[in-house]
């Protein structure tokens, strides 16, 4: 019969010892195991993980002795946790009823979790982007893992995380919910250059950062070029950005300037109006106002709105964001401003959010311009402007955020 080999190991948890078993448990080899366990117990090592992956055979006398080894450890407040049982050993243990009497687990990680007095707390967010060099304006996959200090998933986290880029703008600004400590999805960065993409739990208990080199916006494809039908893969040469019908499978698709072939469902262009939403988050810095305005102007023009509405929203958004930077955050550019732009059927909505002290800008005194001049006051005009330019202005305090919602009616040309 092959002998028994027992290997002792330490592990990440310093009050736990791992014993790796290989060979056979029978009347001849069991005393070896018992001696080892007694030695461990007498030196205060009472939390033992017994790795049975290498166990080839266990005799009936071996089985009997097993039970006897566990109780002294339990009496001292520890345990023997058996892991990595082979299928055959599992079957045997089940038949004799050991699965009810002994602590048996799938692997070491489970055993260690079982032994830790309490779960290691949420400590960090680990970001894993699909690429280290995304293109400006192009979505890429990112995985955000809520983890403890060892980098193990903190499965209890099911909340949301806020995203921020150190230069440029990241969208979406908030991601979630996390499932079993993980969120996976697409993220867009704007602005070429090196940037730190930072994620922080809503509530701020943990955060993480990853550095990315954002490339210039991808160059549009140069005509003519070949595209493949998204339905059957038939390749055709195209010389115009247009709608095409596939000769082989009757699929109808549109080819855009990035050489993407976009299927138009069922051969019919769907004319339903789909509301669009943009979410930005950016540092509270007046140096970014021009970029935020440019974004809003571009998004509104792209959607087909005329210059009057575009100008009014550009201004109202600038004023709202400036107020947050100046009053809610006192020019602290480590703080984050959140802006949401959404297109509804009736018009446009802009939401500006901050996590400063509760402050309703609409409750400040209406501006009396003459007195303003006499008193040489330079603030307070922004809110007046917002209220004059927008159709509705609403302030709310929600989940620790000041939320200012502006709406303007209008429709694209």
């Amino acid at each position: 019969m092959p002998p028994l080999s027992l290997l002792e190991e330490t592990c990440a948890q310093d009050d736990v010892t791992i014993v790796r078993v290989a060979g056979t448990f029978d009347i001849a080899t069991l005393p070896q195991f018992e001696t080892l366990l007694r030695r461990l117990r007498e030196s205060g090592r009472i939390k033992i993980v017994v790795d049975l992956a290498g166990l080839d055979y266990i005799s009936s006398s071996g089985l009997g002795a097993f039970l006897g080894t566990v109780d002294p450890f339990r009496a001292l407040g520890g345990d023997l946790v058996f892991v990595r049982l082979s299928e055959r050993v599992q079957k045997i243990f089940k038949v004799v009823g050991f699965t009810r009497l002994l602590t048996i687990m799938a692997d070491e990680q489970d055993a260690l979790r079982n032994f830790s007095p309490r779960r290691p707390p949420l400590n960090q967010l680990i970001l894993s982007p699909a690429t280290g060099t995304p293109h400006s304006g192009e979505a890429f996959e990112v995985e955000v893992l809520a983890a403890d200090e060892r980098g193990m998933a903190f499965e209890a986290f099911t909340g949301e995380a806020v995203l921020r880029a150190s230069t440029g703008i990241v969208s979406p600004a908030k991601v979630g919910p996390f499932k079993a400590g993980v969120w996976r999805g697409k993220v867009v960065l704007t602005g070429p250059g090196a940037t730190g993409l930072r994620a922080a739990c809503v509530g701020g208990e943990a955060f993480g950062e990853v550095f990315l080199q954002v490339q210039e916006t991808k160059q549009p494809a140069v005509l003519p070029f070949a595209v493949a039908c998204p339905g059957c893969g038939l390749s055709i040469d195209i010389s115009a950005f247009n709608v095409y019908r596939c000769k082989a499978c009757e699929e109808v698709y549109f080819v855009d300037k990035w050489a993407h072939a976009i299927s138009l469902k069922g051969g019919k262009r769907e004319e339903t109006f789909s509301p669009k939403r943009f979410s930005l988050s950016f540092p509270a810095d007046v140096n970014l106002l021009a970029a935020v305005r440019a974004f809003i102007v571009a998004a509104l023009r792209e959607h087909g709105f005329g210059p009057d509405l575009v100008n009014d929203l550009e201004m109202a958004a600038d004023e709202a964001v400036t107020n947050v930077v100046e009053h809610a955050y006192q020019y602290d550019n480590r703080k984050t401003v959140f802006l949401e732009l959404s297109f509804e059927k009736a018009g446009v909505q802009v939401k500006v959010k901050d996590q400063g002290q509760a402050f309703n800008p609409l409750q400040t005194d209406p501006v009396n311009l003459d007195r303003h001049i006499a008193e040489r006051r330079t603030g307070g005009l922004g809110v007046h402007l917002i209220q004059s330019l927008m159709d509705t202005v609403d302030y709310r305090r929600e989940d620790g955020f000041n939320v200012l919602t502006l709406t303007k009616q209008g429709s694209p040309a």
Partner: protein
Amino acid sequence: MDLLTVDVGPSAHGSGIALFRLKGHLDAQTVRELEGRFDAQVKASKVRWIVDLSGLEYISSAGLGSFIGVLSELRARGGDIFFVGLTPKIEKIFRVLGFIRIFKVFASEAEAARAYEGL
């Protein structure tokens, strides 16, 4: 290229008048630069200003507020701010905020300079 350029010099249409030409964007970021240029003129006792906004693509309340901030000092010393070159976008803001009642707006630098002479 700067977000805001400010050119200041003597007006060719009158004596003792400072002509400001603003180009670009005047917001909470760039207003700081503008206020620095204001201070320089006030220190040099140039208190009659003509401000040409024809090159301005954007103005926010921060910019407008800076004009208000310096106005009473200029008027107390016998000066003023006259605006010229208002584009429709900026004229709308002046109306919305009631600036039309507070500041004088002229069609040209020559007209504004003449208005100073008449005072």
